[in-house]
C-alpha cells in the first residue's frame, strides 16, 4: 500500500508539470497582456514587462516558474492586486477558506442527502415515492445552477426577505443556506440517481437472496449487503466532485457575492493575471489528483476484490 501511494505521488508530480506546461503556453497564446489598458503607452507596457520578466523568451519564463514553484514561490499578482504575493492572495485573504467552507458543506449535503434518497427510491421501487424522487432528481439534474441560484435569491431574499441577498464572507449561518443549496442541488440529484441504479443492481444479486435465506431483516439487507455493494459508482463520482466543489464555483460565488476562489480564478483569466492563473490551476490539479488517489484507496476498502496495482499482491 505504501509503495503504491509513493508511486502514485511520483506520477502526480509529473502530471502537475504537464498541466503547468499546458496552462502556461495556452495562457500566453491568448492575445492581450496584464498591463494593457486604454491609457497605457507602449513604453509603460515595456517597463512593466521588464519588471516582471515577461520580456524574456517564453521558455525562460516557464523555466523560472518551475524553479520558483519548486521553491514554494508562487510569484506576485501582476494586475488584480499588483505586487501582492499570490500565496497571500489565495491562502491569506480567506478566498480559499470561503470556497472550502461552502464546498465542504455542499459536499456533505450531497452525500448525506443523495445516498439516502437513492436508497429510499430503490427500496420503494415502483411506488409513488420512487416516482416522485425520479421526477425530482431528473429535474434537479436538468436545472442549470444559475437558474436555481437566481430563483432562490428572488424567492427567499428579495420577496420573502428571510435570507440575506449578499452572502459575503459567510458571517452567519443564514448566509450559507442558499449558496450551499445551489452548489449541491445537482450533486444531490445525481448521487441519488446513481445510488438508486446501482442499488437496484445490487438488490438483484444472488447474495441478497442468501442474506434473506439466513433470515436477515429487509432493512438490514438493504443497508448492510446492498448499500456496501453499490457504492463504487458513487465513490467514483465523489472524487473529482470533491476537488471541484471545494475550489469554488464562479456562478454561485458571483450570484451570492461571495469573494471566493472560484470567482477569483475566472477574473484572473479575464485580467490575464498570469501568476494567479498558474497558481489556481496548480491548486485545483493537486486537489483533483489527491482526490483521485483517495478514491482509489476507498475502492480497495469497499471492495476487497480490487487490487490497487499488480505489485500490490
Amino acid at each position, binding site marked *: 500500500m505504501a509503495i503504491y501511494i509513493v508511486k502514485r505521488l511520483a506520477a502526480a508530480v509529473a502530471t502537475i508539470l504537464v498541466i503547468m506546461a499546458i496552462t502556461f503556453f495556452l495562457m500566453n497564446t491568448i492575445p492581450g497582456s496584464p498591463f494593457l489598458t486604454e491609457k497605457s503607452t507602449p513604453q509603460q507596457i515595456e517597463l512593466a514587462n521588464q519588471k516582471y520578466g515577461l520580456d524574456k523568451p517564453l521558455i525562460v519564463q516557464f523555466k523560472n516558474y518551475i524553479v520558483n514553484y519548486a521553491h514554494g514561490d508562487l510569484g506576485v499578482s501582476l494586475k488584480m492586486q499588483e505586487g501582492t504575493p499570490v500565496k497571500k492572495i489565495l491562502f491569506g485573504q480567506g478566498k480559499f477558506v470561503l470556497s472550502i467552507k461552502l464546498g465542504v458543506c455542499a459536499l456533505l449535503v450531497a452525500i448525506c442527502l443523495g445516498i439516502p434518497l437513492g436508497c429510499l427510491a430503490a427500496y420503494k421501487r415502483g411506488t409513488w415515492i420512487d416516482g416522485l424522487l425520479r421526477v425530482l432528481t431528473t429535474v434537479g439534474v436538468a436545472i442549470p445552477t444559475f437558474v436555481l441560484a437566481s430563483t432562490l435569491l428572488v424567492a427567499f431574499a428579495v420577496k420573502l426577505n428571510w435570507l440575506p441577498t449578499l452572502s459575503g464572507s459567510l458571517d452567519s449561518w443564514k448566509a450559507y443556506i442558499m449558496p450551499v443549496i445551489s452548489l449541491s442541488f445537482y450533486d444531490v440529484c445525481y448521487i441519488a440517481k446513481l445510488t438508486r441504479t446501482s442499488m437496484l443492481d445490487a438488490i438483484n*444479486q*444472488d*447474495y441478497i*437472496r*442468501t*442474506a*434473506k*435465506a*439466513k*433470515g*436477515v431483516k429487509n432493512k438490514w439487507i438493504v443497508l448492510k*449487503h446492498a448499500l*456496501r*455493494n453499490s457504492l463504487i459508482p458513487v465513490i467514483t463520482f465523489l472524487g473529482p466532485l470533491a476537488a471541484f466543489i471545494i475550489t469554488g464555483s464562479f456562478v454561485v460565488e458571483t450570484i451570492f457575492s461571495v469573494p471566493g476562489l472560484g470567482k477569483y480564478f475566472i477574473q484572473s483569466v479575464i485580467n490575464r493575471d498570469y501568476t494567479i492563473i498558474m497558481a489556481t490551476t496548480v491548486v485545483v490539479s493537486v486537489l483533483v489528483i489527491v482526490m483521485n488517489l483517495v478514491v482509489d484507496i476507498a475502492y480497495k476498502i*469497499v*471492495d*476487497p*476484490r480490487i487490487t490497487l496495482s499488480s505489485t500490490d499482491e
Partner: protein
Amino acid sequence: MAEQNKLLEIRDLKKYFNIKGSGFRNKQTVKAVDNVSIDIYKGETLGLVGESGCGKTTLGRTIIRLYEPTSGSIIYDGKPIYDSEKNIAEKMLPYRRKMQIIFQDPSASLDPRMTVGEIVGEALDIHKICSSKAERSERISELLEAVGLNSEHSNRFPHEFSGGQQQRIGIARALAVEPEFIVCDEPISALDVSIQSQVVNMLEDLQDELGLTYLFIAHDISVVRHISNRIGVMYLGNLVETAESYELYRNPIHPYTKTLMSAVPIPDPKITRARERLILEGDIPSPINPPSGCKFHTRCPFAEERCKQEIPKFKDYGGGHFAACHLLEK
C-alpha cells in the same frame, strides 16, 4: 415410506409471477409452480429433476418461502407455516433456523464484501446462536472444518477461493444455524465435474452425521439417482411422477420420465445400441400460456384426444409410485 414421519407436507402449492407485457399487452402470469403436492420425509433425500425452466428452483424456494407462495399450503413438522385458505403466513425467522438452502452459483451467492467468517457468522448472530465472541469464532472454525476448509480461511474473502471451495463456504453458511432441512438448489451444476463428486459425497456425509433432510434439485438425472431416496419429476410447473429412486429408474411410467430416462447415457455400447430411444421433440412450451389438459400433450409421443381436454390426476399407482397421466388409467 408410509411409516416414516413426514417433515414437510406440501399441498396444491402455486407460485405465479406477474410480468409486465411488452408493448400494449396486459400483464401476464408465469405459472412457475402450479398445483404441486408432495411429502418430504425425515432423513430422506428427495431428488427433483426436470428441464430448465420447469419450476424446480421456484418450487424449492417457495417451499422455504424465499418466494411468497401464490396459494396452497406448507406444513412443516406438523405445524402449518403457510396456508392460503386458512390465511396462515407464519413469520419465517424461527423457520430459517430449520430450513436452509444451498444455491446454484456459489460465487454470486456470497457477498463479495464480507469475509468468510462474517458470511458464516452473520447467520449465527441473527439467530443468536452463540453467546460469546470466543464461542462464535469457535463455531465458525468448526463449520469451516466440517466442510473441508481451514479455520484460517475465515479472514479471507470469497473471491480468493475456487468454485468448489466457494460452494463449501455456502454449505457451511447453510449449516451454521443447525438446520433440519436443506434445499440443495443445483449445488453442483456450476462446478467442474472433478469437484462435483467431492461436493456430493460431502453432502451425503453431512446428512449421515447431522441427520439432515434434503430436497436435491438438479437437471442431471444420474447425480440425482445417486444421492436420492426418492425422485420427483417436474414438467412445466407440475409434478408428473414421483417414486423411489430405483423404481423410477427401472420402471418409469409417465411418458415424460420415460423420455428423460432414455436420454441418460449408459456406459455400455451394446445396451445403448439395443435400447429404444424416445426422443422428445420441440421445446418446452411457455409457462405463460401452458397447453390445456395435460401440459405434456404437445410433446408426448402417446398423446390422445382426452389429454388435450382433461388435466390428469396425480395418483398412486402402487407402492408410493405416483404419476399424472391419463394413459395409465386404462
